[in-house]
């Protein structure tokens, strides 16, 4: 019985010589760690044990971008009230959505079409229509490539967030940032290569799924911290003096070196030695990173970090500054969250089911100025030349209000994300939803396409960036995804 295709068999033959040992993979991490330190040349056999992974920082093709800043609006920010302009929605305000007579979405029955919260007006030279809800981001319209034809595969937040961050709606798959880390490593060995910056109000719904490494070695996971909650255990707890700490580490490393003499050339043991040295350097570099006293007044003002009367905004602004500082220091992937779930539906995030008019202006105030400032700041410092700026959310919202409520239900069939910076055409609007903004109709962009394009801009082929796990050479894009070539420079 031949149940599998010959193409598959051929692929298999190519892979058969590859080993699957996890210890081999573990060794990659430390080889990287040590080769960065110049302490150890990669072992001759490593390249064969590296499975499908790229050699350190060697890309499949020349990259346009060296790093990524991803702004993630959790709770599903409404494309209709922000960037996807639908004149008909203004005209038909209060009328039924054609073709949706018996439609039931996530929370149930639909009411009538409802016009966007604020008026839209043309921006920049392109004249792109965006909402007055987000004037600062709107003023950057010429800088963005808007992807208006995004679709998701789920209409629930947890799986949706997880899908946008991992390419799967299920738990247990590596995040985009950890894939990038796995492929490219860090430009700065004193800081983690992948940093997730949770919102000041708390974690997003899918929490660690957004930055977890799942079955990739733990080395590749994102380290979550923000301007309010620094890296855990960066300094010893319990009042240990700096001199005692130093002396203790010195003694530890002497013990470890002596132990290593009994296992000459053992890479794992050597990597642990190196890991304590790197940790010690992080004790220096991270406080410097977090200390914003060197930021001039006008920069704080530009981000809104001076607005003490709106503490959440000021804190989010500090997180935006932190994101820029991480980029400056060569961190490969920065994932910046706007919105948290802990306070409940729509209160601390963009999940506007019931009271859109009450909730959205507050959220917009927090998001708009600091995020736009982050973008401008990256640009004015020349970082945008090799940084990819990503603006995303898990799915969109309905053009109707929910029956008996003053807000919009989930809509996985059409929403907007943005790309900007290195390698991306702008101004550009790619893809479109229907005339009411309900379903993507033109140049539909799946999350897989979105991920494939991000990887492509980093010089990576999404079909070749794989990791063997339990019977599959897993990819970020599963078996899907096409690079959206028309939006590339």
């Amino acid at each position, binding site marked *: 019985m031949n149940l599998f295709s010959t193409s598959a068999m051929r692929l298999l033959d190519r892979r058969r010589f590859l080993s699957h040992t996890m210890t081999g993979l*573990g060794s990659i991490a430390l080889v990287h760690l040590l080769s960065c330190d110049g302490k150890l040349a990669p072992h001759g056999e490593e390249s064969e044990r590296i499975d499908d992974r790229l050699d350190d920082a060697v890309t499949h093709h020349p990259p346009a971008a060296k790093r990524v800043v991803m702004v993630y609006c959790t709770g599903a920010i409404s494309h209709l009230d922000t960037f996807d302009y639908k004149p008909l929605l203004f005209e038909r305000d209060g009328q039924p959505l054609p073709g949706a007579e018996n439609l039931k979405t996530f929370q149930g029955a639909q009411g009538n079409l409802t016009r966007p919260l604020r008026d839209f007006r043309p921006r920049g030279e392109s004249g792109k229509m965006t909402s007055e809800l987000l004037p600062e981001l709107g003023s950057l319209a010429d800088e963005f490539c808007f992807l208006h034809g995004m679709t998701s595969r789920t209409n629930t937040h947890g799986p949706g967030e997880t899908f946008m961050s991992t390419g799967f709606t299920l738990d247990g798959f590596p995040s985009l940032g950890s894939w990038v880390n796995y492929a490219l490593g860090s430009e700065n060995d004193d800081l983690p290569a992948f940093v997730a910056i949770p919102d000041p109000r708390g974690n997003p719904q899918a929490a660690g799924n957004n930055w977890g490494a799942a*079955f990739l070695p733990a080395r590749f996971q994102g380290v979550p911290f923000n301007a309010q909650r620094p890296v855990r255990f960066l300094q010893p707890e319990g009042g240990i003096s700096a001199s005692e700490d130093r002396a203790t580490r010195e003694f530890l490393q002497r013990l470890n070196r002596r132990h290593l003499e009994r296992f000459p050339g053992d890479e794992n043991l050597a990597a642990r030695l190196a890991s304590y040295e790197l940790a010690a350097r992080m004790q220096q570099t991270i406080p410097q990173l977090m200390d914003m006293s060197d930021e001039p007044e006008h920069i704080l003002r530009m981000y809104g970090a001076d607005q003490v009367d709106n503490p959440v905004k000021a804190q989010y602004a500090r997180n935006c500054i932190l994101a820029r500082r991480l980029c400056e220091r060569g961190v490969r992937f920065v994932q910046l969250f706007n919105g948290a779930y802990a306070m409940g539906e729509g209160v601390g995030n963009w999940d506007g089911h019931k009271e859109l008019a009450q909730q959205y202006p507050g959220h917009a105030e927090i998001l708009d100025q600091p995020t736009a400032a982050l973008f401008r700041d990256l640009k004015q410092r020349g970082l945008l030349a090799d940084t990819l700026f990503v603006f995303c959310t898990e799915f969109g919202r309905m053009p109707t209000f929910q029956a008996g409520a003053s807000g919009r239900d989930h809509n996985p069939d059409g929403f907007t994300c943005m790309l900007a910076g290195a390698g991306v055409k702008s101004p550009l609007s790619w893809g479109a939803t229907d005339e009411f903004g309900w379903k993507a109709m033109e140049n539909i962009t799946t999350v897989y396409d979105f991920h494939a394009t991000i990887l492509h801009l980093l010089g990576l082929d999404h079909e070749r960036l794989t990791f063997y796990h339990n019977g599959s050479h897993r990819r970020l894009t599963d078996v899907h995804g096409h690079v959206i070539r028309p939006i590339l420079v």
Partner: protein
Amino acid sequence: MSQWHQPKFDTVQINIFFTLCWRSLRPSATSWEGAADIRFQAGCLVVVLVTGLFFAPLISAQSIDFVRDVQPIFAEHCLHCHGPDVQESGYRLDVREIALRGGDLYPQLVNRERPAASPLLAILSGKDEDVTMPPDDEPLSRAELRTIRRWIEEGAHWPDAASVQLEPEQPLWSLTPPRRFDLSADATSRGDGLNPVDLWIAAKHCEVGLDFSPTADDRTLVRRLYLVVTGLPPSWEQVRQFMADRRSDKYERLVDELLASPRFGERWAQLWLDAVRFAESDGFETNHERPNAWHYRDWVIRAFNDDLPYDQFVRRQIAGDQFGDPAATGFIVAGTHDIVKGEDEDLNPTQRLNELADMVNTTGTAFLGLTVGCARCHNHKFDPISQTDYYAMQAVFAGVQHGEREVAPADLSQRLIQIDSLQAELGDVETALLQYVRPPVTHTSNVDNWNPTAARFLRFTIQRSSSAEPCIDEMEIFSSGDDSRNVALASAGTQVTSSGNYAGSPDIHRLEFIHDGVYGNSHSWIASTASDSWVQFEFPELVVIDSMVWSRDRSGQPNSYSDRLAIEYTVELSLDGLDWRRVASSQDRLGSHDLTVLIPEASDGERRTIAEHIAQLSERRLNLNRDLASLRTHPTIYAGRFEDPPPTFRLHRGEHRLPRETVRPQSLSAFANITGRFELADDATNAERRVALARWLTQTDNPLPARVIVNRLWQGVFGTGLVATPSDFGNLGARPSHPELLDVLACDFVEQGWSMKRLLRLLLTSKTFRQSSQPRTEGLNLDANSRLLWRYPPQRMSAEMIRDSLLSTSGSLDLTAGGPGFLLFEPNNNYARNWVPKTVFEPTDYRRMIYALKIRMEPDAVFSTFDVPDGGQVCPQRPMSITPIQALNLFNSQFVIDEAHRLAGELTDESSSVEGQIEKAFMRVLLRPPDDVERQWAAALATEHSLAAAVRALINSNEFLWIE
């Protein structure tokens, strides 16, 4: 076969044809599926032959020639995507078998029996709802479509010579029966200390020019053995005892002792829990904890400790409810469960399919080492697992839902005996009490008597009901004297009022029904509240009354109602409706009895004796009832709920909106001629399905389960399995480093009764295990990973070993086993749980880490970063990362620093000199004294700063964290 499809026949040819056909088919009938195919084709031949006989002249004039007419159409439109170079969806139109059968997405593209129903035609003509071919190019012309349709109608004749012949496929190595080898020869009798494991390892050494390393020193070996077997290091005292032991079999004795320790199961269960994605929360954004999921964790630990034979271990996890071990089915539902439901029509079916996929995937990988889950959307790309196989296994679990169920306790039979004896005693106690008290209220009839009393009013107050609002169907109040009559009747002019009436079912429950003279639930009164309700009768004139009879349901029907019983009540009389006098109550009835009412003045001796007797009996009765209630309460555990299975369909591309044919619960087709097969009827029960799978999985002729578990145990001992992909024995998985050894161990394992401890003993007592882990240049040059075991491969401890060893070394470890887990996070009740790691720990948090409540997808603050799996997907083998975050956690966290202080404090008490303290610290943590240099460094640190600083370094050292 197709060379026989000639358009012209005579009867002689037909006879010859059938004879040849039958002969040629029989040997190739290697699988049941193949046989079905042959039957079908033979039937088809008859049609062709008959058609050929009668209509041959007509058809032959216009008949389609494949090479001339059809092949060029394929070549022009199809072969660039489905040909020799590219095979989209695993489909190709240059190989006859594949072209007719279909690729990954369709089981039979050409239907010779019903040509018009061939999916190939629908796809080419744009009538298939999912796929239109060619995709972007011009569609086939009408003439081309007609040609293909006629070709199929004529039997889809395709000459051998016009088909590319594929080389016969190699059978999957892991499906071949394991080769046997006699292991019974006592290894030690060979005199060279080699046990059978060593023979095969040595054989491989010979091939590549390696040799064993010398035996490890006692201290290293004992520490290694403790860690590998129990997950905990030995104490210095245990090491010293071993070194002082002069018996020649001291090592084997220690192996046996440790395998018998309850700590063994706590270490080895983790390996299994990883492989079956066990966690104690739902996952996804809500991620609610599962407070009763620990039963399965404890079951796995117990199974290892009791050395439950592996075949039973497997069977019970699939169908433990049918094998008297219900907690084991926690396996099936140990994965994620999305509890966020919505109104959207796609949401719930998709969630359900994901749950089932998780069950199928875990079952396939855990027991068979086959990634059956990969065949959900299409045939497996690499292994002989069809999409139908996937749905056949899904059908086995179709009736299993996530959730808790009440299960019979393990000690049910003992409980039943106990219940019988307590019940008998209770009978005696109640009989004794009934000397003094009235029987309890019944639903059929209750009588209350009092001395004849004149009254205008009677009030019946109900303090407590047996359940819900109390119900009374009729209340009769009798006048005293010879002409006693029921004065309560409405017909007698009596008025009735109440504290409130139940609003529901007014046709059958009304206040006036309480005195209408009609019995039964359908003419009854229900109060509006469950307690403190009353009903009051006002007689038309003053009457002298002395008794009443009342009931819940006096209909006399066999299933009369016995709920809503007024079990505590008071009867009061009044002349004016203002002053009331109590004349009867439940306080002298069994169960509600009140000693102070029964015997208000226990002054004299006799009364006191009676009162004491009643008190004694009452207390005994109370205790008996309490004990009985607890014995009758069965635990509720997260081990799945079982329902009637709905039909299972093969889903095109795995999408719930594209159901195809129904699929029955069946064994995997690739095993058909190895194990035989099971196929159950569509209406097979949930239990039948799982029992069939459980039995099939553990047939002794199934080559995979034994190989897979033997390999997992090997992995637990040596760090890497003989097969480095422990849950994937398919084509994409690794090949065994020592295939003969794997087979030898697997055969022996089954023959010797599937004992995991026995196998482990064999591995642990091998020379291979006892070698030193020191590197040797020639070994490193030839085999840097030590896969050929020229030394014991040194490994970093797992996260659990690190935490447990740390606590064990500092003396903080709480060895309480089993039961609900401790929480590493702050408890919280958010709908979407917000799991924040704890910073302050309770004494109960110092148990072994396997007893921590495992929250899915949430790393704990300190130890998870040492590659603890997240529980999202299965984790057959943990990666081994080394990161600076690990260093920060272990060097700086309060949890670890506290342990350093605790140990330092203890050592300071024990010894006054710094040197002495340092000496003890090394022995405690590293199980050896320091050498002079180390002593000098450590003393300097302790003198200048603190002993705790030295301890903090020692518990961070590679030597402490490594299994050497």
